[in-house]
């Protein structure tokens, strides 16, 4: 009973508005706190969260490029293997024709 009542409550527009306002305020306060903390750390000439995240982003971009190169190498390996198989088959067919003549 209480469960149903509370579920109806959270479905109301007023609750939705309350959630939107609460989220906005909590996030704004958290951002002010995080920015102030980061500013303090960076003014002490220490690596802050943002600096570490930037390094992480550079690593991620490098990994993106490495992944593209690896996929290209694998694609070329597959192509080469298929080409070798094709040429081995055609050589085999040519040899058997030569032997029969």
């Amino acid at each position, binding site marked *: 009973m209480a469960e149903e009542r*509370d579920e109806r409550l959270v479905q109301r527009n007023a609750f*939705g508005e309350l959630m939107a*306002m609460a989220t906005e305020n909590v*996030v704004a306060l958290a951002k002010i706190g995080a920015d102030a903390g980061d500013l303090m750390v960076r003014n002490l000439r220490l690596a802050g969260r943002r600096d570490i995240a930037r390094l992480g*982003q550079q*690593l991620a971009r490098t*990994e993106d490029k490495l992944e593209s190169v690896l*996929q290209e190498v694998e694609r070329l390996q597959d192509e080469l293997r298929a080409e070798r198989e094709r040429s081995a088959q055609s050589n085999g067919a040519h040899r058997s024709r030569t032997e029969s003549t």
Partner: protein
Amino acid sequence: MNPARAAVEFTNTILTTEDAPIGTTPRDVVWTHRKVTLYRYRSTRREHAVPVLLVFALINRPAIFDLRPGNSFVSFLLEQGFDVFLLDWGIPDDEDADMGLEAYVCDELPWGIRETLRTAGAEEVSLLGWCIGGTLCAMHCATADDGAVRNLVLLTTPIDTTGSRYSNWVARDSFDHDLVADAYPAVPGRMVDFANKLLKPVQNFWTTYSDLWDATQKGTARVDAYQAMARWVGDNPPFPSRAYREWIEWMYKENRLVRGRMRLRGRRIDLGRVEQNLLVVTAGADHIAPPSNTAPIFDLVSSEDVTHLDRPGGHIGLMAGSRAREEIWPDLAAWLEERSNP
């Protein structure tokens, strides 16, 4: 049990939840890229030609597929002779703020499929997506034209978000998702989890614990089941801010997927291009992706082989509850089996 002893047992159960073993089925890492990892589960009886690739949501961890010994969907599939892979999105951090939906749909998912096929030596795969993972899989099938996906299984997947409880909160103009995404490069998982729990506040914040207390007093508490689920529920990875912004804006505020207005890397996501054999599973009591949010997919896809299973249960409980092994997993395995051989 006397109340003092029950209180000690209850407290012990709550405090040792983090030690509960989850996701224990042996597996090997096949491929990694940034935080994403592709796993292959070890098996001695791979009988079906088409491997199964499991894809979970961007919130919570995919250990739900392999919750605990005796209640693991992964183990069940392995017993049925499937070659099982899992694409784990990992735990994003601030440096992954640039990962939007296109990174998941156009890069990570197709690359995971590619590695699955190479490793299994197969030409086709069955994609099984759950919740947001299902939406990402459907988007992928709507853009990819390589024919690599033979079967598509969508579990409690949001497609048309109209009228959902979540939509009532985040689709309104006063909910400023940009503010959240600007403030957090990776939106804290705890925040998303708190909002999800508020959808069913009494059940999540009270009934769960009162039920455990009652069962502890009676001596009937299933501690392993409770702890495994509680540990999984409490493990909330951050949501990369770009993906969060796009998910809320495109799926909830603008409902682009069903309106045919979703574009990733300049390509329109047209669900009409989904031609795979399609199995859609909905849960009657799902409050996150209710059946009415999934059903519109039937009018949009071009698949000729379409099956719909609508069962009682919740968003997660349907697949991971104690009755799933008897009530839903055999149907999924049977459906896949019929479509997993040459």
